[in-house]
């Protein structure tokens, strides 16, 4: 959607009309645009979105009418996850109906919140439809919660030139990351997919950079577009490469998915009767060590679910288990680390923090590379090959492309690191920066024949 040639024109038209309308008409216009974009993606995409919205809307009203009826909630969950499972098996990876993995989670979260009594069911069908289908979050989220998102979507936004310009600037930044950096990196990543040894090591680094630029670029477009409409969506990233551990990485990367998994899978599992009983029994038999058994089992199930959300091929299950293993190993070794740091006093030193960030970066590169190999044995072979010597093939980019990539990547990380300082620049300086971004996208962007700029990596999950 963001990457269609017609999107800037359509979005410009929307902005021109939107702020002249009263609240109800603003909501109607947004809903109309959302349905239009889903319909452009295909009748299957639109039909599934309408079906999911009807299921969640109806189930929530029923739970509001008959509180505590677990059967309604379970039916709703079964229907939604069956839809998701059906799509996973019927459509090839990367060709799923648009947004289904995201709006289904959003709808399920809404239904569970109504069941728990933390929110009331939405009576307005069109209001609920807008909550589920709001077009900036169509392709890659963020996965919103009803209490905050519905307030933002209630309409009645007045034109604020600062909000609109901040939103448009953020969109320009997103287009830069996606079209100049991410799509340019797709070429060497494709060239390195069959490599072992140093070629595989380089692949892991380039793929991580590509994924970061692609996903955060898409998020900047989504959050920028929403902000230009006076609507604040939730941030999905918080400088993940500053993470010092795998657990911290997952608090900074795809934040809304991590929150969803925590609130609707991890926590309910931990407080479920079977796991609490297991915890009590383990405490009696194993003492202190048994206390954490039920938490670790819940963690394992949550990571399996996270892996399955990304894909149903075995590599995603391995991906989930690898992440889980590193998080749990860190937990178990925490007392040992604490004693070590007390003895040597390295914690808090800048060089040690840099070491921790570099360690986490390279570890996550290796884990993320699992996405690329549907056969886990192939992935394990590649990992083992890291100790062998090998050659790196022709990567398909010229010297100019590598310079653009180097500058683009430096700009990407530099801007993230200096975010606060950039926000304090004068408006003229900010607009100069946006103009540079737009020119860079037009001149150096990877679009047109020979490029697959029309898709995002995460939109395929």
């Amino acid at each position, binding site marked *: 959607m963001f990457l269609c040639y017609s999107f800037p024109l359509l979005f410009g038209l929307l902005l021109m009309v939107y702020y002249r309308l009263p609240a109800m008409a603003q909501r109607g216009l947004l809903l109309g645009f959302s349905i239009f974009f889903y319909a452009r993606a295909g009748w299957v995409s639109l039909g599934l979105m309408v079906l999911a919205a009807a299921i969640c809307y109806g189930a929530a009203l029923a739970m509001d009418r008959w509180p505590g009826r677990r059967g309604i909630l379970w039916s709703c969950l079964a229907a939604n996850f069956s839809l998701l499972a059906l799509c996973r098996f019927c459509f090839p990876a990367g060709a799923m109906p648009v947004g289904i993995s995201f709006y289904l989670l959003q709808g399920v979260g809404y239904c569970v919140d109504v069941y*728990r*009594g*933390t929110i009331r069911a939405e009576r307005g069908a069109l209001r609920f439809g807008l909550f589920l289908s709001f077009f900036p979050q169509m392709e890659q989220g963020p996965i919103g919660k009803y209490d905050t998102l519905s307030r933002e979507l209630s309409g009645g936004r007045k034109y604020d030139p600062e909000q609109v310009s901040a939103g448009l600037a953020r969109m320009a930044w997103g287009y830069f990351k996606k079209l100049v950096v991410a799509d340019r990196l797709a070429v060497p990543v494709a060239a390195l997919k069959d490599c072992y040894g140093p070629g595989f090591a380089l692949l892991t680094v380039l793929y991580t950079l590509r994924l970061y630029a692609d996903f955060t670029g898409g998020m900047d477009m989504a959050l920028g577009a929403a902000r230009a409409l006076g609507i604040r969506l939730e941030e999905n990233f918080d400088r993940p490469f500053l993470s010092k551990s795998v*657990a911290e990485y997952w*608090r900074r990367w795809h934040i809304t998915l991590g929150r969803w998994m*925590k*609130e609707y899978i*991890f*926590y*309910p599992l*931990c*407080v479920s009767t079977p796991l*609490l009983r297991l*915890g*009590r029994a383990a*405490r009696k038999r194993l003492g202190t060590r048994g*206390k*954490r058994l*039920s*938490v670790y089992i*819940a*963690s394992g199930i949550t990571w399996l679910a996270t892996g399955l959300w990304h894909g149903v091929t075995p590599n995603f299950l391995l991906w989930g288990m690898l992440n889980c293993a590193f998080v749990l190993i860190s*937990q178990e070794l925490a007392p040992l680390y*604490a004693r070590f740091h007390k003895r040597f006093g390295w914690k808090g030193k800048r060089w040690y923090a840099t070491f921790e960030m570099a360690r986490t970066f390279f570890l996550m590169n290796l884990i993320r590379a699992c996405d690329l190999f549907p056969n886990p044995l192939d992935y394990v072979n590649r990992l083992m090959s890291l100790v062998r010597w090998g050659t790196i093939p022709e990567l398909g980019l010229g010297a100019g492309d590598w310079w653009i990539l180097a500058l683009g990547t430096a700009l990407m990380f530099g801007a993230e690191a200096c975010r606060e300082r950039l926000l304090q620049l004068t408006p003229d300086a900010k607009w100069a920066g946006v103009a540079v971004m737009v020119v860079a996208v037009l001149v150096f962007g990877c679009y047109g024949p020979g490029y697959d700029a029309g898709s995002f990596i995460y939109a395929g999950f």
Partner: protein
Amino acid sequence: MAPGGTLFRFPPHFGENVLPHGSHEWLPYSKDEVRLKTVNNNLQPRVIDELGGMTMDELMDILEALRPDVDFDREEHLVEDGILDSFDIVSIVAELDGVLGVRVGAEELVPENFNSARALWALVRRLRG
């Protein structure tokens, strides 16, 4: 601090057991127990009451055993400041169930209930009815 933490059976003589920071005042809470409130420090008063044989000190013991590096007497933004993460929260819930017999539902696992020891005690009191 006197042995036994902040609980005293009888009010001490004036001037004894003075805390190192700021002034303090002794407030009678019940006929033979007192509650210590430190005016200038940010110590949260420990609620010395009995709830079916359970006191807040038992809760504090659980918290301090799980995270001995955290000052649960002072901290009031445990979740918001990232001091407690989701593992800590579910470990606390498991301990509340295993040791104190208090069952916490998933809808109660919100930051407001875990931001401070006082908030957690209020949750326990509410769930114990």
